């Protein structure tokens, strides 16, 4: 009787593996703890939503202006003091971004900072574009600096200046700057999943 119980148990376990194993091929079945949820590919549409919720946020768009002046602040006003992009996006000859912005946030002065702080080139203007227009411009080599999809993913997920958006520091009153509505980890996963699924842009 004991032996029969044993076989019964093994058979049930095997059945469980087969059923749940095929139903949730990535080990992401209900109750599974095999891998963190973030590793499951997101449906492409959801990935696009998450990615664009970040890229349309003011922490990104303030420095992808349509004109020659950066924006700043939660209300995205034009940068004070008439600051301009200059020839290379690093400011004017004697009023460089690095006159005030250094490689890290400055929580004493409230001036934000990250490596190679500068404006996106004119061709990468996002201000005023819809999220699908922004995505299209990102994929267009004529406007994205000749980047391949792989290079775009690298830029979006590893560039310290891009990722600054998730650690934007405090303003000059000591108040934390608003972060994008998606976490850094989820955003990075979304970009990768969207690209892996073919970098499709929905019709909107």
């Amino acid at each position: 009787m004991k032996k029969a119980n044993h076989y019964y148990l093994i058979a049930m376990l095997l059945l469980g593996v087969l059923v749940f194993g095929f139903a949730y091929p990535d080990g992401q079945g209900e109750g599974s703890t095999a891998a963190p949820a973030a590793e499951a590919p997101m449906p492409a549409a959801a990935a696009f939503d998450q990615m664009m919720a970040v890229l349309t946020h003011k922490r990104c768009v303030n420095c992808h202006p349509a004109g020659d002046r950066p924006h700043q602040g939660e209300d995205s006003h034009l940068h004070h003091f008439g600051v301009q992009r200059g020839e290379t996006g690093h400011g004017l000859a004697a009023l460089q971004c690095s006159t005030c912005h250094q490689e890290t946030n400055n929580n004493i002065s409230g001036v934000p900072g990250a490596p190679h702080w500068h404006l996106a080139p004119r061709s990468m203007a996002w201000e005023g574009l819809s999220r699908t227009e922004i995505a299209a411009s990102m994929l267009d080599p004529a406007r994205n600096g000749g980047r391949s999809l792989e290079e775009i993913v690298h830029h979006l997920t590893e560039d310290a200046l891009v990722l600054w958006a998730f650690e934007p520091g405090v303003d000059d009153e000591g108040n934390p700057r608003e972060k994008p509505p998606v976490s850094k980890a989820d955003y990075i996963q979304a970009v990768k999943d969207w690209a892996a699924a073919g970098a499709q842009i929905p019709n909107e």
Partner: protein
Amino acid sequence: MQVSFNINGTPQRVEVEEHTPLLWVIRDILDLKGTKFGCGKAACGACTIHVDGEAVRSCSFPVQFAEGKNITTIEGLGTGDALHPVQQAWIEEVVPQCGYCQPGFMMATAAMLEKIPNPTDEDIDNNIVNVCRCATYYRMRKAIHRAAEIKSANL
């Protein structure tokens, strides 16, 4: 942390917390009081110095980034015998009123003249965006043009 740099041609080493604004170090540790504290928020330019020849607002420059750099403050811009063209022009045009903002303006101007030797009024408006509470802007503009003249005559 320990930070080493040259300031006005003299090597210095300071032991200080890495985020300390360079302005604090210059004024309070090195006792060079020519560089002024105005806003502390990189908004007024009173604290402008040069780091490797570039104008930098030292109230917003963590000292950790000064490692190995050449720093110039208003005290190092010229000497009594050999005035910098900007100092000469400032004297000729009697620019200062209270004077508080002037070291920052002079350092910003000196840096600009290295990049734009003959600035137009528009260049001045775009690049020199410091704040003067006494509104000496009109005399400052004249002095900047004069400094450009002196500098090019000295070449």
